């Protein structure tokens, strides 16, 4: 049997990888992919908590389903914005896109 902590550890590692990507990458598409990693880590957290702590309730499960919906909408809007700025400036790796400098 794999216990709860192992899933949570995987989620925590994936989450910090995502945070690292957001802070360190310069390319907006790469930052967006890193954000997707973070959201997936959270979802893994939610599903693991649901399975181990409250499997008979729906709340955690439903929470994860809505995170999917939000992530899809967020990715679509983000990529549209990236295409828009690319059209205007022919670049998506502007120095301004630098999360730590803001």
């Amino acid at each position, binding site marked *: *049997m*794999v*216990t709860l*902590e*192992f899933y*949570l550890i*995987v989620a*925590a590692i*994936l*989450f*910090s*990888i*995502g945070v*690292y*990507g957001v802070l*360190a990458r*310069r*390319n907006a*598409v*790469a930052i*967006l*992919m890193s954000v*997707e*990693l973070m959201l*997936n880590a959270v979802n*893994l957290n939610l*599903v*693991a908590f*649901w*399975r*181990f*702590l409250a*499997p*008979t309730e*729906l709340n955690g*499960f*439903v929470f994860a*389903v*809505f995170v*999917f919906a*939000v*992530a*899809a*909408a967020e*990715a*679509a*809007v983000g*990529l*549209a*914005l990236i*295409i*828009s700025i*690319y059209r205007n400036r*022919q*670049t*998506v*790796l502007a120095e301004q896109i*630098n999360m*730590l*400098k803001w």
Partner: protein
Amino acid sequence: MLTFSPVSVSFFIMALFTIGGGLGVVTTRNLVHAALFLVLSLFGIAGLYVLLEAPYLAVIQVLVYVGAISILITITVMVTRRLMGIEETYNRQWPIAAIISGLLGAGLIALVVAQFGALTPVADVPVDNIEQLGRAFVTHQGFLLPFEVASVLLLAAMIGSIVISRDV
């Protein structure tokens, strides 16, 4: 605790996919490769969902993330392909970023290990779990309101994405 069993072996394989793919996403210079690593990582998560007895979420994960979002990202990379061969992937602060995220990861791991130790499930997943989910989405005592709000969100996102990225 961990014992040697088919489940724990598959857990480790899936965890390896997830974390290895994640590392690939943030370290590769080539964005198309990064997108492929993302697919690998998300696929690993889908496997973990199966192990967590949430096959429904595993299917959504494959459809929505591996199917839709990764394709969308790949297309964006192709459209903005002039940046594919860029020299520098990281900004100058990457060591600080590494320290911040390393500390964050260590802290979170310590926290979850201390707090959630070796827990085993408190109960089995009800067999009619998905049926309950379906009902909850359409009853007012369940999740009808968020379900409807999610549809408004998707509508707004669709309209917005089209308007912003339209080439007129």
